[in-house]
C-alpha cells in the first residue's frame, strides 16, 4: 500500500494557506474602522457604505457588466462556430492559418494585443472616420476578439471527444442535418459552450491591460477604476470591493459547477440509456 504522504500533505496545506491568507486578510481588513488600510482600528462597515454610495463605482460596475455580457455572448457565438469548424470540417482552404489565428491570441502578451488594437482603431479613425470616439464599442470589439478563442479551445476539445457515431446514427435514422446539429451536436457541447461563455464573461470583466488601451474618455470600467486607485496605493474601500467580488464569484462558481455537473450527468445518463435500449 501507499505510505501516508506527510510531506505532500504539509506542502498542500502550505500552498492553500499561501492561496487564501492574502484574500482572507483583505476580507478582514475590509471591516477595518481605521483610515489607514493596514492598521487595525476596530470593526466597521463604513467602507461598504462609502463604496455602495459611490456613483462612480456603481457606474463603472454597470459598464463592466454590460461589456462582459455583450462581449461574452458574441465571443461564444463566434468561438463556437470556429470550434465547430475546426473539429468537424476536416479540410478547408486556409485551415492552417485559421488554427494559428485561434491559438495566437492565447499566448500574445496583453500589452501587445492592447497597443495593436489601439493603433488599429486610431488608424481606422484616420482613414474612414470610425471609431469616432473610443469607448463601449471599441472595448467590446477588443474583448470579443481575445475571449472568443478561449471558447473555441473549449468547444473544439469537447466536440473532438464526442462520439460522432451518435450524429451519424441520427442521420441514418432520417434526421435532417439542422436537426442533428440542434438535437445532437449542440447539446453534446452544451456544457462546453456554457463554460466558454462563463470564461469569456470573467475574462472580459477582469481585463485591465487591453481595456486600458482601447478605452476612451468617459468609459471607465471597474478594473480600470480599481487600477487607477490602486496605482496610488492601498485604499480601504478597495478591500470592501474585493470582499464583495470574492463572495459573489465564490457563490457563482459553486453554482455554475453544480449546474454543469448535473447537466453533464444527465447527458451521460441519456447517452447510456440510448445505447442500452439498442441491445
Amino acid at each position: 500500500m501507499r505510505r501516508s504522504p506527510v510531506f505532500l500533505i504539509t506542502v498542500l496545506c502550505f500552498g492553500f494557506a499561501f492561496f487564501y491568507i492574502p484574500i482572507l486578510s483583505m476580507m478582514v481588513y475590509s471591516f477595518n474602522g481605521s483610515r489607514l488600510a493596514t492598521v487595525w482600528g476596530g470593526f466597521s462597515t463604513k467602507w461598504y457604505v462609502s463604496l455602495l454610495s459611490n456613483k462612480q463605482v456603481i457606474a463603472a460596475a454597470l459598464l463592466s457588466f454590460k461589456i462582459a455580457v455583450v462581449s461574452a455572448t458574441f465571443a461564444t457565438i463566434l468561438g463556437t462556430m470556429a470550434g465547430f469548424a475546426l473539429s468537424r470540417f476536416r479540410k478547408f482552404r486556409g485551415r492552417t492559418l485559421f488554427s494559428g489565428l485561434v491559438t495566437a491570441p492565447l499566448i500574445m502578451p496583453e500589452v501587445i494585443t492592447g497597443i495593436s488594437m489601439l493603433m488599429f482603431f486610431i488608424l481606422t479613425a484616420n482613414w474612414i472616420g470610425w471609431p469616432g470616439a473610443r469607448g463601449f464599442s471599441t472595448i467590446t470589439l477588443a474583448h470579443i476578439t481575445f475571449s472568443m478563442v478561449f471558447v473555441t479551445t473549449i468547444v473544439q476539445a469537447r466536440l473532438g471527444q464526442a462520439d460522432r457515431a451518435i450524429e451519424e446514427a441520427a442521420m441514418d435514422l432520417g434526421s435532417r442535418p439542422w436537426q442533428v446539429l440542434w438535437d445532437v451536436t449542440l447539446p453534446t457541447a452544451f456544457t462546453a459552450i456554457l463554460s466558454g461563455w462563463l470564461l469569456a464573461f470573467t475574462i472580459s470583466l477582469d481585463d485591465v491591460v487591453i481595456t486600458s488601451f482601447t478605452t476612451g474618455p468617459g468609459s471607465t470600467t471597474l478594473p480600470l477604476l480599481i487600477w487607477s486607485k490602486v496605482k496610488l496605493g492601498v485604499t480601504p474601500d478597495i478591500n470592501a470591493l474585493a470582499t464583495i467580488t470574492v463572495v459573489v464569484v465564490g457563490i457563482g462558481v459553486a453554482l455554475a459547477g453544480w449546474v454543469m455537473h448535473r447537466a453533464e450527468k444527465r447527458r451521460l445518463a441519456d447517452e447510456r440509456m440510448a445505447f442500452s435500449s439498442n441491445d
Partner: protein
Amino acid sequence: MSVSRPFSIARWFHRRGWSDLIIGLPYGWLLLLFLLPFLIVLAMSVGSQAPTAPPVGFGGEYPWINPRGYQRLFTDDLYIRSFLISLMNAGLATLLCLGLGYPMALGLTRVAKSWRNILLMLVILPFWTSFLLRVYAWMGLMGKSSWFNQLLTDGWNLLVPVDWAVKSIPMMHSNFAVVLVMVYTYLPFMILPLYSSLERLDPTLDEAAMDLGSRPFRVFLDVTLPQSVPGIIAGGLLVFIPAAGELVIPTLVGDASTPMIGRVIADEFNSARDWPMASAVAVALLVLMVGPTMLYSRYQARAEEGPGK
C-alpha cells in the same frame, strides 16, 4: 452498418454552403481584428517617429524602412536590461511555481477522492476572482505597517544580532515582490496541467517498484518524475509565457528603475509616444516567445496523449 456512410454532417454543410458562413465569420473576424492590427505593429516597427497624429511617418521626408527601433534595441542599455530582467523574473517565478506546484499536484492525487474535487475547486477559485484584486491583496500584505510585514520583521529581529534589527522589511517595489506576486497569481496554471498528467499515472508501477525494493524517493525519481515531464513543461511554459510579458504586476509592485519589458512597451507607447520603438520592442518580445511557444504546443499535445509516449 457504415456501408457507404451516405451523409456526414460536415459534407452536408459543405454542399449547402453553410460551411462558408460557419468558417468565414470567425475567420474574417480574426483576420480583421487580430491579424491586421498585428501587421500594423509590424509595419510601425520600421516606421519613423514624427510630430504628427498618429505620430508615425512613412515615405516622403521619412524613409520607408527605418531600422532605428531595432538598432536601439541592441545599443540602448535600457532594452537589453529590461529583457534580461523579464527573463530572470519569469524564469524564477516558473521555478518557484514548479517547486511549490509539483508537490501540491502530487499531493492532490493522493488525497481521498471525495476531497479531491473540493480541493481542485479551491485551486481554481482564486483564478476566477479578479486578477487585479489578487495583486492588490499582496500590496496590502507587503506594506510596511501590515501585520504580515510586522510578523516577518519580528521574526527577523529575533533571529539576527541586535544591530541588524530593522523596523520593517522593504518588500514593495522590488523584483522580489514581482516574483512573489507572479508565483501567487500563476501557481494554478502550474498545478492544473501537472495534476492532470500525474493523475493518469498508473499506481501499480509505483507499487511494482516498491515491491522490487526501491525506496520511496527513488520510486519518485525513477518512475513518477520521468513520466510527468510533459506536464512539467506544459505547466512551466503556461507560467513563463504570460509572466515574461506581464504589465500589471511590475507596474503595481515592481521597481520603476528596473522595469520589465511589458512596462517598457507601455511607456514607450503612452508616455514617449514613440510608436516605432514600442512596436520594435513588441516584435522582439514576440520573437523571444516563439521558441517557448513551439515547445509548449509540442508538449501540450504529448501531455494530452497521456504518459509514456
